[in-house]
């Protein structure tokens, strides 16, 4: 279990997180949503020690501040929001970087397996720089998956921390990535994801944390958090949940989409 209590963080002298608490259980998908600049990325970075924070973050009972980096790396993997890579690595070489952290040596086909999982089978020999934005994002996801491939290890659950994993993906690949997260949680792993899309969040999240201005505005299952009143307050506009337009209109909901095959 991941439990963070009263997290505060400052960036450039400004308080960005002002006391956020969050609990995430293995076997579940926990999603963080909120308007732009509400501190979602900052919260994820605090939870993964990317920046200094005040408060306590416990991973399966142990304070992460006291765990050595190599041990944390065997138990959790982190997908950053934007990634830029310095040298001309091939996609295969990038995914294999995820295996550096593995506690036990991974089989040689693991990288290709991870690429196939994110729909990039056959991309091994391409240069990372030559991929489209969405493909780069999925290649990074493959690296992260390769790092903690088995959702449960001998010493407990493995964790995925993902910052907007579907942000620049088309609807088909969004479903594919949501499915990866769901499978990972179903197999006993923990998933914490920052999300932008409220519909996908409503479908897939077990728990939602809605942030506003560095604080938690609401938390709980999607049905409890996604109400007209709460969402309207969070996003500063009138939002209506589960309502269809009165006049005939065109809309595409991920609820009604299925992956081919």
């Amino acid at each position, binding site marked *: 279990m991941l439990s963070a209590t009263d997290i505060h963080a400052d960036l450039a002298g400004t308080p960005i997180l002002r006391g956020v608490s969050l609990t995430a259980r293995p076997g579940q998908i926990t999603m963080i949503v909120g308007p732009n600049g509400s501190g979602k990325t900052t919260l994820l970075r605090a939870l*993964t*020690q990317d920046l200094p924070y005040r408060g306590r973050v416990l991973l399966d009972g142990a304070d992460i501040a006291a765990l050595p980096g190599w041990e944390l790396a065997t138990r959790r993997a982190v997908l*950053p929001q934007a990634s*830029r890579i*310095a040298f001309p690595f*091939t996609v*295969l070489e990038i995914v294999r970087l995820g295996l550096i952290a593995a506690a036990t040596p991974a089989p040689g086909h693991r990288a290709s397996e991870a690429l196939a999982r994110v729909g990039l089978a056959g991309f091994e020999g391409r240069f990372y720089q030559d991929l489209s934005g969405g493909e780069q994002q999925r290649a990074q996801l493959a690296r992260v998956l390769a790092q903690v491939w088995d959702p449960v290890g001998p010493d407990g659950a493995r964790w995925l921390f993902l910052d907007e994993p579907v942000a620049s993906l088309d609807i088909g690949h969004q479903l594919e990535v949501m499915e990866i997260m769901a499978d990972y949680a179903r197999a006993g792993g923990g998933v914490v994801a920052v999300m932008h899309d409220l519909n996908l969040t409503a479908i897939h999240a077990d728990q939602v944390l809605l942030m506003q201005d560095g604080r938690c505005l609401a938390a709980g299952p999607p049905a409890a958090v996604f109400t007209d009143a709460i969402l309207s307050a969070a996003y500063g506009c009138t939002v209506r949940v589960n309502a269809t337009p009165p006049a005939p209109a065109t809309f595409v909901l991920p609820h009604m989409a299925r992956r081919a095959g």
Partner: protein
Amino acid sequence: MATADNSPTRDFVAGDRQGRARRVMLGLVALLLVTSTLSLGIGASGVSLWSVLGQIARAEAVAPREALILFDIRAPRLALGLLVGAALAVSGAVMQGLFRNPLADPGLVGVGAGAGLGAITAIVLGGLLPLALQDVVGFYLVPLAAFLGGWLTTLFLYRISTSRGRTSVAVMLLGGIALGALAGAVSGVLIYMADDAQLRDLTFWGLGSLAGATWDKVLVAGPLIALVLVVTPFLAQSLNALALGEGPAAHLGIPVQRMKTISILTVAGATGAAVAVSGGIGFVGIVVPHLLRILTGPDHRYLLPNAALLGAALLVGADMIARSVIAPAELPIGIVTATLGGPFFLWILLRNRSLLDL
């Protein structure tokens, strides 16, 4: 495709360049042996390596003049060329990995100038040190001072150009120019203060040359460079991970702070040692790693050893050119590497303008 990551593999996996990198490594070893042999055999005196080897093989006494030329002139020069070439190429590769940019070369961004300032300070002001201390550091004073100068410059450069885990190329290059100019100015003042004997030392040193190589110089630079060459393989995977950025590297379990400190010390050690014995020899540190990245990719597990091999071979080769173009006189080797490296550097820039937009 079921092959283990690190074992030599027969069946081909696309995007896996480890096999090629290993073959290139063998080729480079061969190249190094050939250039080294040639370098021992070529020289203004016309002494033949084969005749000396023949004398040794027949258990005859080697003629004293030939023995002197081979063992006390050519051999230390070869050893120094190997050491300096390997040091320059490896320090370039490590610095580029650390700054996550192929343009970060110790010679280019002022680390060489910083090391030079250290060396000049030691030559000019070393006499002011208490005698007891002079005895202790002995002839290691100049390389130690060069190391210190290189270390401080690298440290400062990393501090100013990296914030929140991101390295700004513009700040790195411009800061490097500023630091280099500053070090050059202070060096100028020191040179102005130097007496005649020191001035002779300085001119000799400042040419960027392997001329005047002695076993003493090999002993001065050797230990530091050997230490660096021993340490770098342990940095390789960390530098690979660092290519993803500091945060992602930490999430892969890399002790980022420690590996940065070691990398900076490594760059300073190699640059300092090379500068102390050969002055500033440019472009090896940028040309060699770049060529190898094109050939076998940026995986530092192969890039670093291959850079050491190619850097050594290249410098020994350049030294042969320097010795033979206007024989019996010789060119400073810095002129040769700059003539070859300058256009190559421009080619890198033009071929890949986006390097500067990071």
